[in-house]
């Protein structure tokens, strides 16, 4: 208990100093939002396993540490950045070091006119009208303490704004790098992505670490797909194996918009991902796919919601987990089909493979349907490597290790194949090969 008080105490003591440190990143509206969020943070308590939504994810190890906001300026070399690039010819790269935008390491070479890509801190200064219109409107901070914390202390993060009818052809690769630090730091990327009418953009959020430090990433991303916009969103979570990662992505989908998410998770000691997509217009399409690779004592928790509030929308969700050692996985996928959402198609699947007797998965697919003319399905499986298939491969001369690697790749293949960007697919294939083909 004392720890939790201390954890909170630091932020409570430092809020005023934080607000004073802001330099132009403060419209009257933002000031009000921050104040309100701070009040909520103060009043809310941290979730425990007694909360239904956190039943299998005990965050008390996170609350043992006193994390502080990074104060110094960190510089990193391009060599370090290069380690995390998907290929050599990427044209749009945004680098954040310990949560702070690093213009020096970033580059933006191929963007259509009027597109704004950069730090949210700059956007608060230069584009307050856009910020005021969208910021904090989707990720509610009234009842989620981590979102309240993020909102109260919002300082930096990625900002993407694509104007009407513009197509951003090259993906925007945003890398959040955490480097060595004396103190145990909390980084709070606060991202806002807006695709205006008829526009199209691909955004990759990529979380990495220079070493195996203990730190805490508390990320909140708000995404708006306006009418007929197309957003292809990737999240590659490769944090330090000792890091805590709590992230929330909130998506607002207008009429005929198309949102695709691929969430890949390999890092972190405790990871919690919330992805919530809301249909707020007819004819929308939403795909939420995910792959998590766990080992040692890692814990990964995916909570997703697809909110069919309007008719004639389609959603597809497929999460796959590969768990080794004593790792634990949680999948809680809720599909809500509201009364007005007739002609909904919603399909959800979660498949898990356990490579060790000590690995564990709790899976809870949920369909809540209040409309009567819908097509919905869901299903979950937990299994092991198929011994029949393994014997078949061995009988062709393929050894134990290679046979396992082939079958694990095969298990992951449908999620990998559903990713549209070659470079992301290859990057992921490499991760799998390094993990299993030694």
């Amino acid at each position, binding site marked *: 208990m004392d720890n939790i008080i201390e954890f909170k105490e630091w932020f409570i003591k430092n809020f005023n100093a934080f607000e004073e440190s802001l330099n132009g990143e403060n419209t009257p509206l933002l000031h009000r939002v921050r104040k309100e969020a701070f009040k909520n943070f103060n009043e809310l308590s941290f979730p425990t396993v007694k909360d239904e939504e956190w039943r299998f994810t005990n965050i008390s190890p996170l609350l043992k540490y006193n994390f502080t906001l990074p104060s110094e300026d960190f510089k990193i070399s391009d060599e370090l950045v290069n380690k995390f690039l998907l290929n050599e010819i990427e044209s749009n790269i945004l680098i954040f070091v310990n949560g702070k935008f690093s213009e020096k390491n970033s580059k933006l070479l191929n963007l259509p006119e009027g597109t704004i890509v950069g730090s949210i801190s700059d956007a608060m200064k230069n584009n307050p009208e856009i910020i005021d219109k969208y910021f904090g409107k989707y990720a509610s901070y009234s009842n989620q303490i981590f979102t309240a914390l993020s909102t109260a202390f919002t300082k930096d993060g990625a900002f993407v704004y694509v104007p009407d009818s513009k197509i951003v052809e090259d993906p925007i690769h945003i890398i959040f790098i955490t480097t060595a630090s004396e103190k145990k730091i909390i980084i709070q990327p606060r991202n806002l992505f807006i695709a205006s009418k008829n526009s199209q953009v691909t955004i990759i959020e990529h979380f990495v670490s220079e070493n195996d430090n203990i730190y805490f990433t508390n990320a909140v991303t708000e995404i708006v797909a306006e009418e007929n916009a197309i957003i292809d969103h990737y999240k590659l979570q490769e944090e330090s194996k000792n890091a805590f990662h709590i992230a929330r992505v909130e998506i607002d989908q207008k009429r005929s918009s198309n949102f695709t998410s691929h969430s890949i998770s390999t890092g972190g000691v405790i990871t919690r991902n919330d992805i919530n997509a809301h249909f707020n217009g007819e004819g929308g399409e939403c795909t939420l796919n995910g792959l998590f690779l766990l080992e040692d004592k890692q814990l990964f928790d995916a909570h997703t919601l697809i909110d069919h509030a309007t008719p004639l929308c389609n959603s597809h969700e497929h999460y796959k987990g590969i768990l080794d050692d004593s790792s634990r996985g949680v999948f809680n996928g809720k599909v809500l089909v509201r009364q007005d959402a007739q002609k909904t198609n919603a399909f959800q699947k979660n498949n898990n493979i356990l490579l060790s007797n000590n690995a564990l998965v709790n899976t809870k697919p949920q369909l809540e349907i209040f409309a009567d003319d819908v097509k919905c399905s869901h299903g979950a499986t937990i299994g092991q490597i*198929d011994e*029949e*298939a393994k*014997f*078949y*491969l*061995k*009988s*062709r*001369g*393929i*050894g*134990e290790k*290679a*046979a396992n690697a*082939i*079958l694990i*790749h*095969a*298990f*992951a*293949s*449908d999620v990998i194949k559903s990713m549209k960007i070659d470079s992301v697919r290859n990057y992921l294939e490499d991760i799998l090969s390094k993990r299993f083909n030694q």
Partner: protein
Amino acid sequence: MLEVKNLHVSINGNKILKGINLTINAGEIHAIMGPNGSGKSTLAQALAGREEYVVTDGEVFYNGENLLELSPEDRARKGLFLAFQYPVEIPGVSNVNLLKTALNEIRKFHDEEELDAIDFLNLIKDKMKLVDLDESFLKRSVNEGFSGGEKKRNEIFQMAVLNPKLAILDETDSGLDIDALKVVANGVNKLKSKDNATIIVTHYQRLLDYIIPDFVHVLYDGKIVKSGGKELAFELEEKGYEWLKNGEEKVVTG
């Protein structure tokens, strides 16, 4: 090449093979026939090294080496090949990936260089002709959604690529129409040489119209009850397996 001595095999405590003796030399084709449940497939799978098939007694020597001590993959690397009665479907693994990995693992085992992409492709294309498969097949997942005939042809195709010393065809003919049967038989005949041997496990005599065996063995209740030349297969076709059951009783009572 292969010497099976008094082989006893159990599955889940049930005795299936009860003392098999069999000697196979290079250049020979042996047919093992017998009614359902006589232990034919058990013999095939046990030779390939399936773990659930427990050898309780007996010995198997393969080129002078104790086969039973080798892992399934090492048996394959040393030239033993099993064409499965029920080839396994592996979604997400392409045929070409399976073959490339297998071929290179076998080459690595023999301290040979991996095949480069062009040599590999040439080899594959050459062998595909044998079994009448087209190239689109290479990218498909192993056996997934294949017809029965395609699965069996795929087994023979894999055999052709891996070029084994001892091939065991486990009921490769079951469920095949006559055209597919001819394709399979043609593949086997073309691969025959004085250095390799083939064991054909079958329930029916039909395949033996196209692949002429040097020896025919009849398996009944876990034992080889009769061995002979190819004419034994015709005799079986004519008289059925009942004839043997009776024959065996005669031996016992007489």
